[in-house]
């Protein structure tokens, strides 16, 4: 039976680069897919594009492409990635320039656009899912609105002979679903197969998170070779069945446990995994270990897409100021608590305009609160105060009130650190799928 082999070259924007090169050189893959666009990344990229019209794509695009373009070209491996972020055309042009520098003439590079719905969302009457208010009420605080596009424009680019496809926002699994649809000629209303292809994408999209990354728990769940973690390969059959494996000799582990953890990662109702192309149903998925570092997944299906697209709306929400300082040795906890009291009192006394404040002692109760942390006295504690404000100037004052603990607070504070930053937050709206008009543009090296 004919199969197609997909490699996942990145699970997030900052991911390791050499595992992707390993896949290109030794993975015998047909496609190398880089998923690099977190929820907020595209909003930050849009801000970068406003500062520089030639910018706004993934800052690691050049490093990744420089590593893999030549080995992929030599083996006929095609690349699909959402590293275009807010500017897929500029990203495609940069890739073209790089290809020419590397002496790779004739490379066909496609940019997928049409996910940017900023004007439509600003003008329309769409309600934000999280807060229940109209998106338009955010006014000029909105910096981006990008729809999660489906696989279709990527399939079109591949059918037109693209060696590299660079997109902005698309559903993460669609980056993988598209090559499968292209290779096997699946219909875009074959819901069962699209559901299976979506499972393939979902399993692979976080790269090392299925090969033993984000999994090790010494003594309970041991994983060899995390420093040389291999990234996953999905071997997909025409019926949508997938086998997950990795390059032999690479670090990590592929077991039923690693695959099950990834199956449910960021999934809510497993019978209704909402994607632009299909509603995936993973509720009856079965997994089988069929060899060392090799797991087969079967039983996914799907139902018709909803006809709505999720749009991530990025907006300037607020500012956060933060400060930290450490105390150690006998009495560290009491000094940390005293320091927190001092900072609280100072923020009130100096009238810092806060809309929200959070005070933690790292090492004691910072992650999950007093009830779950319970009782033990640590050797060292680190105070952390974070507050929300309406302006950057106010946010700066929070960290300052932590820093002044040096000469004004309890004994022995060390390692003070402070920051103040603008918060670009993300909420989402649903829009009719017909509102987005995906386009494919080619640049040729």
């Amino acid at each position, binding site marked *: 039976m004919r199969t197609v082999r997909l490699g996942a070259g990145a699970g997030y924007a900052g991911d390791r680069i050499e595992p992707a090169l390993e896949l290109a050189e030794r993975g015998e893959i047909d496609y190398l897919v880089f998923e690099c666009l977190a*929820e*907020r990344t595209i909003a930050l990229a849009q801000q970068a594009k406003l500062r520089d019209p030639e910018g706004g794509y993934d800052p690691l695009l050049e490093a990744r492409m420089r590593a893999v373009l030549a080995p992929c070209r030599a083996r006929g491996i095609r690349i699909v990635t959402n590293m275009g972020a807010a500017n897929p055309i500029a990203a495609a042009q940069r890739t073209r320039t790089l290809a020419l520098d590397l002496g790779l003439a004739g490379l066909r590079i496609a940019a997928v656009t049409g996910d940017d719905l900023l004007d439509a969302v600003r003008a329309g009457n769409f309600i934000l*899912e*999280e807060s229940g208010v109209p998106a338009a009420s955010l006014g000029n605080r909105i910096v981006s609105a990008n729809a999660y596009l489906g696989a279709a424009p990527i399939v079109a680019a591949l059918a037109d002979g693209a060696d590299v496809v660079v997109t902005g926002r698309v559903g993460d699994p669609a980056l993988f679903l598209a090559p499968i649809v292209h290779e096997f000629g699946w219909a875009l209303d074959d819901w069962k197969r699209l559901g299976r292809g979506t499972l393939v994408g979902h399993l692979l999209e976080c790269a090392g998170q299925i090969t033993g990354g*984000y*999994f090790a*728990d010494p003594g*309970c*769940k041991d994983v060899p070779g995390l420093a040389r973690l291999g990234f996953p390969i999905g071997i997909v059959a025409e019926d949508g069945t997938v086998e997950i494996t990795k390059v032999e000799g690479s670090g990590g582990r592929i077991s*039923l*446990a690693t695959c*099950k*953890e*990834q*199956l*449910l*990662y*960021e*999934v*809510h*109702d*497993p*019978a209704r995994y909402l994607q632009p192309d299909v509603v995936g149903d993973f*509720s*009856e*998925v*079965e*997994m089988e270990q069929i060899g060392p570092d090799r797991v087969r997944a079967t*039983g996914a299906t799907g139902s018709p897409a909803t006809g709505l697209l999720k749009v991530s709306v990025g907006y300037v*929400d*607020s500012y*956060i100021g933060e400060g930290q300082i450490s105390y150690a040795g006998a009495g560290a906890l009491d000094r940390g608590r005293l320091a927190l009291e001092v900072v609280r009192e100072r923020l009130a006394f100096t009238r810092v305009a806060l809309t*929200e*404040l*959070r005070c*933690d002692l*790292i090492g004691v109760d*910072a*992650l*999950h*609160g*007093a*009830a*779950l942390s319970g009782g033990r006295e640590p050797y060292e504690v680190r105070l*952390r105060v*974070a*507050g*929300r404000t309406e302006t950057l100037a106010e946010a700066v004052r929070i960290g300052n009130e932590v820093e002044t603990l040096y000469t004004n607070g309890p004994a022995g504070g060390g390692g003070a650190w402070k920051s103040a930053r603008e*918060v*670009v*937050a*993300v*909420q*989402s709206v649903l829009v009719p799928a017909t509102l987005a008009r995906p386009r494919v543009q080619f640049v040729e090296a």
Partner: protein
Amino acid sequence: MKLRALAHSRTGDKGNTSNIALIAYDIADYGHLEAHVTPERVQEHFREIMTGEVIRYALPKIGALNFVLKGALGGGVTRSLALDAHGKALGSALLDLDIPDRASTDIVRIA
């Protein structure tokens, strides 16, 4: 016994909602997990952290339960003041839950 002895977990985030997948090491323990790790117990465990409800989805074919925790991420990953804004460490906190010992409950059942 601690839940950690029978199951492992992974946490994911979407907006202000966290999901924790709880997976039995041995699929034979799935029924024990289903009986004792109820949405109500999970809600009680995380009462200091979350503001919404807990929904539980069952995946018996892989021996897993998926818990969806609404209002668990301090107003949302992209604006939270929390140190762990994504709530990545919540799954480890769930494994600290006390559940009845597997063997002793079997004995009770037989008796």
